[in-house]
């Protein structure tokens, strides 16, 4: 490694201390705002409008439903298309909410249902739509009107909406709300109209999908429209997935899609040159500026600092209770002692009495005392005496060791034939005692010898170092390398055992099979044939190693844990010891070459990826509750441009789609080259998902690369990419064209549920 690189890593390990404290963003999510009273004035104004001009305009979006009056310049309401309905059993009452109101109550939040099928612009739950519309009409001040909504309705729908969806919506509006007429249109086209577009390519990226629609002379060429199934919803979902994987070991915070949506909105941007930028994104230089940290709520563990006085009091209390316990124990001991003395008294009395009794009387007395025979009685007395003595010495402060120090081995030298039965018994006991005693002494001696050996080794080592430093260092280096190789081998073996087909696993299976079979196997069979049962397994201690190797693989977790982990620790500890030596005496050996430095966080890409350019303290709840967004910031919006490579959506990205429309489809329709240039001159961006910083520039670059040189490409954004769809619909609602396109209730009844009048801004009748 070049010296400069080493220097850089050293700096990195220290550099974070010079960084400013991290900017931490709180996590945001959708919340209940406030109660919105019904607005009755709107309807009054609507009634004052010239005949047929006023209409209720509803932008029926999958992220937000916006509703208002056609003669106003902004919607009165903007609510998410959700509802929540539940029954409070305690109150015996059913509650239902729509829009943000669902977030007002915990129970309600748990019952939220969405009107749209997840990630699409198609309604899948009509009850929710009904609720949302109820809410909309109430808030628009329509409650109180008898017999239905008496205003024409203008509503947006998805591009190429399904006939079934339109039919069901019409049915509901006509049958349930008794609307006089309805007209549907496409939101992005309304937005384009509002921004005075005539001919151009509308790029609309919204919550549920991204559409590209060429518009010629104010008329949408829907047959050439293309949809990419990726929108804000997908982006939020994808980000959520990425975060879960990033912290797959477990993130303590709870991440929901609304939070992810806010993160996408606040922190993501479209990279103008993705490949360039992503390759350098995790570079240490400036990483702190590129990453965004989101702090989840957490509870700090409160460590109460105790004062000196409190500590003293606690110690006093402890001592006090200890004393009390001691007293109690002493009392109990005393009681036991007294009981034993009484017993001893009793047995001694018995012994005295049986001295000159005949056999029968002796037996009676012994039976009374529940003792088997005289010897038993004697033993009992002896034992009692011993224990009383022991207790007494203990009470006095106890030195009972002198008893153990000199065990009596007198009988061992006496031959058996000179002893009676009791003597032999005692001799056996003494022999046992003696072997025990000897073993202990031996162990002690061994330990001391070992200690001496280690000390001697250290001394020799020292000597070698002093006399032959180079050789000594070389030896250490070799030893270190050997240990490192061992560690590597161990890791490889561990990894291999995970794989059923690896050589290591196969050998292990073979070992197990060999051990399990009683039958002859391999070399064993020859022995068996040669004669009898001379299985010499275990003759060599190394034979038992086979069990070790088998168990290692069996469960690396539990039983062999100490073994496995212990060995591991040993290797690493050994390397560390060698490294400390090298660090101390070898000039060429730097800290950065050590195993610890290799594993240091400042070298880890994954550390930077998960925790940014600062060290991470797993004990701090604030730090564990932080999300660090870095590559995700450009990775998530990039899906629009590379859906397959990044998120596995098997569709072309928007640059490719736009290129296809502009260079293939439109010329194929018969547009001359000059005419297709008209589309190029007005590439129009609308929808909430195009608000990313850098979107226009990226699309411009992508298209420039696809188009012939000098093509008159011009991009523009809607003035308000989010609200212009509603505004366009409102502005259009009163026009002659819109009124012609209205489907009245009578027409609907006569011509059927899917009936639709085609107009420039709407879907075709399929």
């Amino acid at each position: 490694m070049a010296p400069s690189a080493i220097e850089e890593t050293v700096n990195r390990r220290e550099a974070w201390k010079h960084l400013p404290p991290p900017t931490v963003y709180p996590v945001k999510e959708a919340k209940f705002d406030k109660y919105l009273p019904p607005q009755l004035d709107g309807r009054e104004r609507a009634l004052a409008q010239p005949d047929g001009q006023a209409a209720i305009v509803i932008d029926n979006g999958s992220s937000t439903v916006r509703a208002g009056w056609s003669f106003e310049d902004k919607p009165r309401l903007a609510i998410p298309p959700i509802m929540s309905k539940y029954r409070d059993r305690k109150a015996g009452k059913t509650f239902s909410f729509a829009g943000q109101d669902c977030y007002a109550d915990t129970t309600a939040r748990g019952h939220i249902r969405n009107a749209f099928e997840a990630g699409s612009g198609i309604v899948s739950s009509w009850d929710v739509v009904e609720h949302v519309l109820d809410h909309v009409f109430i808030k628009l001040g329509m409650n109180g009107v008898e017999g239905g909504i008496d205003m024409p309705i203008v509503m947006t729908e998805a591009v190429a909406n399904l006939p079934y969806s339109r039919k069901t919506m019409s049915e509901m509006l006509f049958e349930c709300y008794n609307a006089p007429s309805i007209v549907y249109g496409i939101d992005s086209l309304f937005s384009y109209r509002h921004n005075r577009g005539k001919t151009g390519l509308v790029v609309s990226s919204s919550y549920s999908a991204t559409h590209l629609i060429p518009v010629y002379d104010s008329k949408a060429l829907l047959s050439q429209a293309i949809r990419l199934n990726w929108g804000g919803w997908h982006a939020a979902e994808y980000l959520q997935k990425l975060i879960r994987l990033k912290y797959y070991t477990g993130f303590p915070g709870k991440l929901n899609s609304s939070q992810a949506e806010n993160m996408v909105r606040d922190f993501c941007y479209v990279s103008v040159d993705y490949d360039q930028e992503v390759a350098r994104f995790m570079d240490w230089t400036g990483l702190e500026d590129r990453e965004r940290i989101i702090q989840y709520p957490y509870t700090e563990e409160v460590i109460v600092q105790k004062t000196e006085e409190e500590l003293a009091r606690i110690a006093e209390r402890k001592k006090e209770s200890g004393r009390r316990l001691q007293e109690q124990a002493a009392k109990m001991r005393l009681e036991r002692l007294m009981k034993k003395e009484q017993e001893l008294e009793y047995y001694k009395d018995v012994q005295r009495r049986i001295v000159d009794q005949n056999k029968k009387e002796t037996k009676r007395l012994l039976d009374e005392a529940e003792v088997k025979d005289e010897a038993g009685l004697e033993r009992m007395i002896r034992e009692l005496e011993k224990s009383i003595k022991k207790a007494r010495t203990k009470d006095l402060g106890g030195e009972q060791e002198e008893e153990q120090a000199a065990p009596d081995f007198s009988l061992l030298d006496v031959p058996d034939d000179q002893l009676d039965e009791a003597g032999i018994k005692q001799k056996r006991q003494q022999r046992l005692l003696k072997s025990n005693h000897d073993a202990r002494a031996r162990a002690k001696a061994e330990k001391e010898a070992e200690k001496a050996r280690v000390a001697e080794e250290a001394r020799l080592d020292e000597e070698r170092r002093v006399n032959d430093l180079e050789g000594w260092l070389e030896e250490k280096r070799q030893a270190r390398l050997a240990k490192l190789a061992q560690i590597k081998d161990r890791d490889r073996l561990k990894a291999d055992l995970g794989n059923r087909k690896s050589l290591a696993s196969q050998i292990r299976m073979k070992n197990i099979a060999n051990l399990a079979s009683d039958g002859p196997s391999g070399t064993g069979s020859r022995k068996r044939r040669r004669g009898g049962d001379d299985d010499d397994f275990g003759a060599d201690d190394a034979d038992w190693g086979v069990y070790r190797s088998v168990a290692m693989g069996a469960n690396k977790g539990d039983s062999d844990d100490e073994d496995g982990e212990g060995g591991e620790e040993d290797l690493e500890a050994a390397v560390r010891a060698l490294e400390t030596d090298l660090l101390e005496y070898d000039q060429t050996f730097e800290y950065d070459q050590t195993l610890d430095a290799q594993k240091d966080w400042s070298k880890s890409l994954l550390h930077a990826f998960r925790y940014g350019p600062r060290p991470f303290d797993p004990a701090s709840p604030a730090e564990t509750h932080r999300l660090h967004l870095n590559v995700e910031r450009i990775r998530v919006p990039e899906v629009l441009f590379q859906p397959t490579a990044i998120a596995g959506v098997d569709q072309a990205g928007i640059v490719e789609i736009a290129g296809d429309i502009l260079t293939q489809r439109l010329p194929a329709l018969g547009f001359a080259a000059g005419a297709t240039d008209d589309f190029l001159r007005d590439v129009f961006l609308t929808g909430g998902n195009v608000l990313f910083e850098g979107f226009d520039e990226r699309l411009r670059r992508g298209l420039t690369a696809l188009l012939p040189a000098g093509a008159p490409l011009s991009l523009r954004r809607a003035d308000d990419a989010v609200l212009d769809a509603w505004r366009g619909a409102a502005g259009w609602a009163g026009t002659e064209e819109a009124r012609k396109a209205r489907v009245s209730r009578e027409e609907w009844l006569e011509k059927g549920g899917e009936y639709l009048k085609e107009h420039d801004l709407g879907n075709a009748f399929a």
Partner: protein
Amino acid sequence: MSNPEALAAQAAHQELIEQLDIHSIHKSFRNPHWRPNQRRNKNIKAILGDASRKEASVIATPQDNSGAVTPLQDNDGLSTSGASTPAAPSSSGSTSLQPNLAQASRSLSKLVLEKTLSAPTRPPNGVSSAPTATYTNIESAPSLAPLKHYCDVTGLPAPYMDPKTRIRYHNREVFAMIRTLPQGVGEQFLEARGAHTVLK
């Protein structure tokens, strides 16, 4: 719960909920006799399935096969490649053995022919005769551009792929991490890229 503050807060919350509730509000604008179809909630798959079934049954009936509706009916026969019209004889007859297949191939050939036949003759604003856009046919086709590879873990450019888990990775360190992933987590990384194995 017994302290007055909590009780007051609870009462205020209850009041707010009552205020927000739209269940108890009488809605005069609604038709009181409105009874929605119990089975109106359908997902896209079901809707598309129903539609194609319906279409298939329409095609199977002969009177609907008149030239007015399907002007290019006999063009099925024009197609020289047998593969594109597997049910050519039956589609002209009234009993179609494979209505879906026939329908698919017919609409496909119709699309192709219309595009080729009409392109030179139609003026630029003549859009009416183009095939209508439906929810399914406006979907973007798969990309033809060469696929770039990105690390499944970090999102950085990925020159390598782990042959065992099929996860793409950026460098040695990421590889080491991939190899220590617990069972099943690797699949989740693949799933984010849509490259996971789906068992059916």
